[in-house]
């Protein structure tokens, strides 16, 4: 995200902070909106995985990959744009949670352990998305 801001020349060529804050604000809105949508969809996937796992649920889950990558990028870059320590820690925690569970995620998928996968989504990923959303709401420029 920082790269994007730099490339636009906003920081170096335009001391107008309002433009920088506006882009960051939009990104914060995108992030929270995505987190909320993702939570809803993931909860439905969890119900499916527990009660009647299907190829469709797994396929839908795999479609989250680009979105999660974007969130990691946002959370990683956001550390440089926020000033309070708590928010920095929360963003950093989100990134490390995703890295940590991605290995387990792959193992569960490979062994078709849908209960394990559902546990991971319901008790690790969804809470992480919720925390991220709260953090971003708090750090969003007004």
């Amino acid at each position: 995200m920082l790269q994007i801001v730099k490339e636009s020349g906003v920081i170096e060529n335009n001391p107008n902070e309002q433009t920088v804050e506006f882009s960051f604000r939009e990104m914060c809105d995108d992030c929270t909106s995505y987190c909320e949508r993702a939570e809803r969809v993931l909860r439905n996937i969890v119900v499916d995985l527990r009660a009647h796992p299907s190829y469709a649920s797994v396929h839908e889950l795999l479609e989250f990959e680009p979105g999660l990558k974007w969130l990691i990028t946002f959370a990683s870059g956001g550390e440089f744009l926020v000033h309070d320590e708590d928010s920095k820690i929360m963003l950093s925690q989100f990134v490390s949670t995703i890295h940590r569970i991605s290995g387990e995620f792959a193992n569960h998928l490979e062994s078709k352990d849908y209960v394990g996968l559902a546990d991971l989504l319901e008790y690790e990923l969804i809470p992480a998305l919720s925390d991220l959303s709260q953090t971003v709401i708090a750090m969003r420029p007004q």
Partner: protein
Amino acid sequence: METAAVLRNETFGFSKETFETNLKLLDTKHFCPTLQELDLETLFESPPGSMSLGNESHLVLKVSDANGQYQLNSRYNPEAEARAILGESSIDDDTNVIVIFGFGNAGILRSLVSKENSEKCKIVVIEPSLDLFAWTMGHEDFTDVLSHDSVNVVAVSDVEIAVNSLMPFLSLLTLKNWAPVIAPPVARLLSGFLKQFVRRLDELVAAQKLGFATTADTSDLFMTNAFLNARYAAASPGIIHLREAWKGKPTVLVSAGPSLDKQLDLLNEYKDRVLIVAMGASLRTLRNAGIEPHIVVTVDPFHLMYDHFKGLKSEGAWLLSDMAGNHDIVKTFSDKMIFAHSTPQMETLFQHLINTRGLMISGGSVANSAFSAAAIMGSGQIMFVGQDLAYTGGASHAKGNVKRLEINDESVQKDPQKFKKVRGYYGEDVITDNKMNSYRIWFERMIPTVKGSKVYNCTEGGANIEGAENRPFKECIEQFALAESFNFDELMNDLETFTPIDDDAFRKRVLRLRHQVRRIKMLASEAAKSAGKVLKGIEVEAEDTELDRLKVRYNRVMKVMRRQKTAGDLFVTGFVQKGIMFIQRRQALFNETEKDKMFSNYTYQLTLKNACKKADKILERFLRTFNPPPSLKKK
């Protein structure tokens, strides 16, 4: 709780003590016949699954297969997980039997027993993974669920035993609705077992419905026929008198399947050297081929059965009839008769009239009964011909049979509930229907129990019958046919244990039966009146003392009634079977108030009274027109 959780963590692992505690309950309350015999040391060396504790100190089971390791239940919230799985099941307000596949960590079971009114539901847990189950039993004390009145655990790996253990819970007399619960990882673990289980359950449920419908609708026809035939049975031997009479010798059971046609020439060649027992439906085909069987079997009471015999008279054949067999056939086909009962109750009842005639265990088809008869006679080799039990070549019966039906792919597609594919004689798929399939299953269950006879399926077509050796008819008959021809009439005339009942004795017994029936009618009338008064008393909210007085009077009549254990009681029961079934089901499923119970009792006594009237009429008509048949008069 924290302390308990900490303790649990510290002591977690397999405990022989815990295992013994669970096993004790399983032994006394549940069905786990081989669990005791499991070698625990083997389990320790090679555990069937890994156990750990989840977030709520609950058991988490992990197992493996070719795709890898997977959890059988969640590490987190077991209640929420159980709710999610139960939410997907078909359990509704009418469900009174729930079948859970896989015991797991008992999460689903605990969720069910904790619900309100859980005692109204029977919960059956089918657990075929005995190693995993035993391993689980050593890791947690399941007293709370194993001692619950509604819970029944069936831990067996054999599909047949598992299905047979479940069937009593699905009795049509007590079942409102049932629902299976299978968690997805359990479906993966038990996939092979489940496939066979479902197929077998489907077969047994269909057979049960068939049996139930037959009993409910036809019991008074059975009783009427049996009584009318009793006149002939009095003068004729029963199957019991032929016990071991054909010991070690060959019998051919001739059924009317489409494969019969190709065996006729061979059968004709050897007809005097094997005992030919023909089902009524095959008689016409045999006659056209110049074969007179030694015995023709009929069991069904229905008028439809007479079509096979219409216009035909015995040319030497003996008629083996169920006591309740169609009376027109018994009256007209042959002077030479043998009788048998299909139920112990009928045997007991008619013993009072004609002494013992013996049991011919029924499986629904004439061939099933004929097989029973051949086994009782001690036949050394029982050969099936024409026993297709399938639509061989798209037909149900041999050519010339009045009941021959032809089917094609279109008819199968139109009625997928009725038709199914089973393994054929040569290993191929063949099409059969639910009825024929239930007859085949009966054979497969009975054949292993018949120790003195070797069974050969010489049909050379149709469905495969497990337990019967498939062999070409030519091979069998050449090997087993007697060296010389025999005379079956001589054998029948030499029966030492049989003595016919004379007509005077028979008439006296009928008179006594009528007297018993009239007594029951009087008691039923009194009981109905008393029950009606109690019912009215409840409705108008009569004083307690008055209500008690009415109840005492009713109970007094019932006490006298319960002491009536006579032939009359049994005779009348046949006429009231449908009513009994209706009331039994009502009492099992719907009785909640005293008024409901008394209403059921009132209805039952009225039904019984009407049944007595019917029974009395038959007996009265018989006595008025009593004219013993020629066979009885001669003796």
